[in-house]
């Protein structure tokens, strides 16, 4: 018996938008690294009716990276999408959902992200800094210097690096490295860590405290280092951050 022909649903229909919202919430809720993504465009949608109150939906979504790290408790609607000249990152996702009695549940999702091409950015902004590899030696040196500077000058918990989220390097008119990295508070004070930082452990999940540091380091013509770390405070798992209950590597 021929399968039920896919129902026609427009990519801007309210039902498609509701499905896309459920998909994006699932993707952000199950991601463990990087930044939250916002819906930019519904590329395609196909609906397979199983029975009157049970449909399978296949979504192709075009997402854009926001400035909120995945560990941030900030609700997605308050997260700013990175602008084009900040060197945007796009996410392409295929998501399979089930809609039963009007409720969506994600059955599978597959995403891959990629930065916009450097040519596009330099065409519009010749001197804008461009994304650099996270293992670039200047990036690693800047993160190390910034975290050490913060820990040596800030009372309170000694912070450990969780991951480098983003890095950009500008070469003209000055050589500047800009980094963002996620950190976690440890069970040491910054002072106690002076002696033996290796002994400092991440706080247990029921006391965890994560945050994001941003730093910029001028390498030439002058030398300068600016660091700003914002801790989120202890968070209980929410729909925006369910993975917190599974611990963070």
């Amino acid at each position, binding site marked *: 018996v021929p399968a039920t022909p896919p129902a*026609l649903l427009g*990519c*801007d229909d309210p039902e498609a938008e509701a499905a896309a919202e459920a998909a994006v919430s699932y993707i952000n809720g199950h991601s463990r690294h990087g930044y939250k993504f916002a819906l930019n*465009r519904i*590329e395609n949608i196909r609906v397979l009716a199983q029975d009157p109150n049970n449909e399978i939906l296949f979504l192709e979504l075009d997402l*854009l990276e926001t400035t909120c790290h995945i560990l941030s408790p900030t609700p997605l609607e308050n997260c700013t999408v990175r602008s084009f000249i900040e060197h945007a990152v796009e996410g392409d996702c295929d998501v399979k959902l089930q809609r039963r009695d009007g409720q969506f549940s994600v059955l599978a999702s597959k995403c891959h992200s990629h930065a916009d*091409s450097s040519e596009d950015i330099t065409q519009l902004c010749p001197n804008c800094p461009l994304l650099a590899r996270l293992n670039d030696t200047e990036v690693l040196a800047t993160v190390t210097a910034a975290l050490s500077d913060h820990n040596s000058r800030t009372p309170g918990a000694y912070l450990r690096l969780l991951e480098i989220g983003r890095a950009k390097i500008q070469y003209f008119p000055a050589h500047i490295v800009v980094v963002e990295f996620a950190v976690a508070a440890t069970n040491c004070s910054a002072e106690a860590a002076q002696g033996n930082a290796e002994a400092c452990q991440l706080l247990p999940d029921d006391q965890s405290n994560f945050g994001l540091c941003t730093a910029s380091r001028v390498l030439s013509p002058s030398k300068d280092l600016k660091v700003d770390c914002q801790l989120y405070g202890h968070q209980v798992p929410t729909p925006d951050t369910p993975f917190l209950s599974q611990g963070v590597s």
Partner: protein
Amino acid sequence: PVVKRAVAQVAQRDKVPHPVGFVSPPLLCPGKVRYFKI
């Protein structure tokens, strides 16, 4: 540096003329762009 090649113009295929009165279904997808396209 990697240089983006211009996309060759798609050769205009001989289009089969639609029957008189044919109204193509509204373009259902892709949907609107909420921020910008990269």
